[in-house]
């Protein structure tokens, strides 16, 4: 596996949320808006990359029998660091994510990467793997978050929770201007499906995404199957043709 493949595998092919169903708790709980999903993703990127690096650095020192507890301590250290940093520099994000910041410790994705990749590979590879996987996780969170926020409010806000680069919250995207071309004094906000900002909407939005992924997979499988069938058919035809020709030849020889 090249470094690039190692980095890119987390996005679609081995996406932690959509393919492995890892880290479902944050994927449902903090994705009510785009911004909280992004914030959670950033925290996971930091924790996963650094824990992978440290686990990989110390892989020869840690005795086999106490592997898991040591990994848990390493991960929990980074999570505590991240928790204090968010409290200090993005207090509103810390409030919005709440209990899900300490819960990064028990996110199966992080311990899973430490066990299955970082404990067996070199530091650079582990760092790339952690970063790529965490980016894939963030990508998953953000796609759920964008869908939910668009359905719930009709726009996407930035600046409420992550106070970086902006002074005031502003709208990254909204359907309003398109609609205002046709209708005056109309705000899509009044017609949002509030359910998608609430817990039931989280389940249903994720269900739709997973169903889409599954239908894509099914389609691919079906196409492959059809291609296979076609190949077999062709082979059969060719074999039949050969047989026919052989028979013709025989008949020719006989006559």
């Amino acid at each position, binding site marked *: 596996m090249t470094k690039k493949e190692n980095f890119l595998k987390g996005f679609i092919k081995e996406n932690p949320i959509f393919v492995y*169903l890892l880290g*479902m*708790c*944050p994927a*449902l*709980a903090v994705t009510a808006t785009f911004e909280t999903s992004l914030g959670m993703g950033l925290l996971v990127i930091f924790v996963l990359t650094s824990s992978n690096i440290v686990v990989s650095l110390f892989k020869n020192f840690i005795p086999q029998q106490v592997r898991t*507890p040591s990994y*848990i*301590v390493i991960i*929990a*250290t980074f*999570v*505590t660091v991240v*928790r*204090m940093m968010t409290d200090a520099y993005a207090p509103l994000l810390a409030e919005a994510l*709440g*209990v899900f910041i*300490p*819960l990064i*410790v*028990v*996110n*199966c994705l992080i*311990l899973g990467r430490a066990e299955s990749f970082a404990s067996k590979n070199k530091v650079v590879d582990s760092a790339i793997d952690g970063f790529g996987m965490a980016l894939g996780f963030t990508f998953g969170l953000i796609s759920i978050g964008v869908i939910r926020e668009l359905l719930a409010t009709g726009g996407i806000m930035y600046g409420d929770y992550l106070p970086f680069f902006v002074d005031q919250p502003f709208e990254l995207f909204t359907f309003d201007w398109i609609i205002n071309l046709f209708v005056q004094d109309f705000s899509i906000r009044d017609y949002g499906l509030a*359910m998608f900002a*609430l*817990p*039931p*909407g*989280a*389940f*249903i939005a*994720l*269900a*739709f995404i*997973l*169903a*889409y992924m*599954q*239908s894509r997979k*099914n389609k691919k499988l079906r196409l492959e199957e059809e291609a296979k069938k076609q190949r077999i058919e062709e082979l059969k035809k060719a074999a039949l043709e050969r047989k026919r020709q052989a028979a013709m030849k025989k008949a020719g020889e006989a006559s």
Partner: protein
Amino acid sequence: MSFAVFATAIISSMLINNVILMQFLGICPFLGVSKKSSSAVGMALAVMFVMVIASAVTYTLYDLVLHPYNIPYISTIAFILVIASLVQLVEIVIKKYSKSLYKGLGIYLPLITTNCAILGISEANITNIWSTTTPFGTGLFIAVSTAFGTALGFGLVIFAFSSIRERLDAANVPAAWKGVPISLVVAGIMSLAFFGLAGII
């Protein structure tokens, strides 16, 4: 410390603020071990066992050690270690003293360390219940009742869900929705139903 406090804590954490459907804790076992109702019941019992003990221990630890020595910021690392070793201890004790119980719960116990409901409830107990003015006994009592109610809620939902899933296997579901997607829709509808309970106390 009265029955009313106990009942309120149980009903609110079991039905109104359900751990799976409202707080999204413990989704992994919810989707993973709910294919058969017998395994769902086993998991629920194991969770109840560990959750009640873990809540009591972590609350005590926070109140008597972490807060007095002014190190509340290491709560995450302390709690996860306590929970992990507690699970091991429970496993050893059960194995030694009750073979039948071990047969029922044994295979679920190792899975519980990474069940975020346990750590989540321990942390939530500290943020919601613990305060400098609450006496230790009262706080501990509410924390344990909340944990018990939460575990009951977990058991209720995971059992109902596994029963639905057993029926769902026989249903004619479109190929794209087979498996996890349709289960998530079911969970969404259950969540809507539980949403209607908000406001009964």
